[in-house]
């Protein structure tokens, strides 16, 4: 590369060339920053590798078929059985109860915040939701176990001390702020013009909210709900405390069960030596949980992507 003009050779005289020390420093800094950012990729690899390692070891000893189809989970018994289904049904039962609470309530709050609330109301409610979201889950778990279950017993005498109902209900309240804030973002992404068009036709607020904004934000809402579901599926302390640690294959919300996360906690609390089958099971269950939540999150991302295309 060269210019016809008498430039390159002599521009040293003008001092336009790079000042070496600072150029080197800049280069060093940018590499350092990039390395820091790359650490997140390393983390993902580490997660996958650490789960995969012991999961593979687990499946050397246990048949995949039994794991995926069995309905008995007794890995620490003398006659161990490794059917994952009791953990899965428990996980989805507690999550489903939680979503039953969180979806209508969370959506209602989001609709209210984005379409009805005055600035003053917003500035009051938003921090309130943040407070709710900031309470550690172990505290919710304590509450479910020591207050909600005894309270429910007043209405349902046969409810057991550990049960999915109370865990699910409390988890639902815990997730309300997540649903509310994620779906509110989806509502806010609906272009103003759409609302104004409807108001211009003489629509009332709730009509705009339910017939214009909500349908337009539907995919965003779906994506948000999937993220909330994945939170529920991965939630640990509430279910470990309130739902119990008995891997029962049941859909009865009143009896003790064990979710995937509760099982991992149960094993971690005991003295399970490295390399034992019990130790390997928590990685196999962890890998299963990871795959399930990853699939849910991925579904959410897919929906978000399609959503974007629609407005561009």
């Amino acid at each position, binding site marked *: *590369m*060269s*210019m*016809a*003009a*008498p*430039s*390159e050779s*002599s*521009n040293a005289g*003008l*001092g*336009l*060339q*790079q*000042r070496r020390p*600072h*150029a080197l420093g800049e280069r060093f800094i940018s590499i350092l920053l990039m390395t820091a950012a790359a650490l997140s990729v390393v983390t993902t690899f580490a997660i996958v590798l650490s789960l995969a390692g012991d999961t593979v070891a687990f499946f050397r000893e246990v048949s995949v078929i039994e794991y995926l189809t069995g309905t008995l989970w007794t890995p620490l018994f003398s006659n161990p059985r490794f059917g994952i289904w009791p953990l899965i049904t428990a996980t989805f039962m507690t999550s489903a109860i939680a979503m039953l609470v969180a979806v209508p309530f969370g959506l209602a709050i989001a609709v209210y915040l984005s379409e009805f609330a005055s600035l003053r109301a917003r500035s009051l409610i938003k921090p309130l939701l943040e407070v709710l979201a900031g309470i550690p889950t172990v505290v919710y778990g304590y509450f479910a176990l020591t207050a909600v279950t005894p309270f429910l017993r007043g209405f349902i005498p046969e409810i057991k001390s550990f049960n999915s109902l109370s865990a699910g209900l409390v988890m639902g309240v815990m997730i309300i702020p997540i649903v509310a804030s994620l779906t509110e973002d989806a509502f806010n992404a609906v272009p103003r013009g759409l609302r104004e068009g409807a108001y211009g036709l003489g629509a009332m607020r709730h009509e705009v909210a339910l017939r214009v904004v909500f349908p337009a934000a539907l995919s965003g809402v779906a994506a948000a709900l999937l993220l909330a579901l994945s939170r529920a599926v991965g939630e640990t302390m509430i279910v470990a405390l309130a739902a119990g640690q008995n891997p029962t294959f049941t859909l009865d919300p009143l009896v003790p069960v064990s979710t995937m996360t509760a099982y991992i906690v149960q094993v971690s609390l005991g003295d399970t030596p490295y390399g034992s089958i019990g130790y390997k099971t928590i990685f196999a269950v962890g890998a299963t949980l990871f795959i399930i939540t990853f699939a849910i999150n991925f579904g959410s991302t897919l929906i978000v992507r399609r959503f974007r295309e629609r407005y561009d």
Partner: protein
Amino acid sequence: MPVLINVTQKERETEPISEEMGVVDRANVVLETQRLSVFYGNFKAIHDVNLSFQKNKITALIGPSGCGKSTLLRALNRMNELVPSARAEGAVLYRGHNLYAPNVDPVEVRRRIGMVFQKPNPFPKSIYENIAFGLRINGWKGSKAEMDDIVERSLRRAALWDEVKDKLKQLGTSLSGGQQQRLCIARAIAVEPEVILMDEPCSALDPIATLKIEELMIELVKQYTIIIVTHNMQQAARVSDYTAMMMMRPDRSGEVIEFDTTETIFTKPKDKRTEDYVSGRFG
């Protein structure tokens, strides 16, 4: 990475527009573009611009919105490179040295060719620090007293000293819009550039503040070379010595259609489109 095309001997024979017209004094040219084109991705924003800018003169760039005035201006001190998709072809010669040559550091370029932006953008620091910052980062080492001196001198030259001398510790962002813009000018001249690029420096200001900046430009040009983008025809006529008229070509890339002394451009332009534009019949 800016890509530089080889300007072969043959291509050099197509003389720059300015020389062809013989309006500038070759001996006093500070900055000159040669077949300068700028791309954003695949979109060519300006096409083959050949312009010369004279020392101690104000050159105005005019033309309808979107024709690439800002793009051209920002290519002159390589500010364009901050847009990831931007790429330049051709050359910008600063006293005969190609600013796009591979060993030229854009950071050095910008110190010599300073810039004032459309929206006043003082740093959210004290007035004093706004001016001192440029010196500090450029490795200036001197006593506090010397720095005070430079700050005062820069503010005086920007006709702001009397208004701020008692509140140098206040935030630069607390000034009025016109004062902020003069602070930005003071900040630019503190590092002693040779050329100052101004992109619609008065468009966010009221008429009185505008007048002040215009007076300031006429004062500053005794020491500096100024290139200004403006949509205000009267302003171009009032302050500039030379004017370049830009237009969009059918492929939406901008080119210079006429360059001459400001007087000629405004009184007897050669191009009909220029005449329409400066008389307000266009854009």
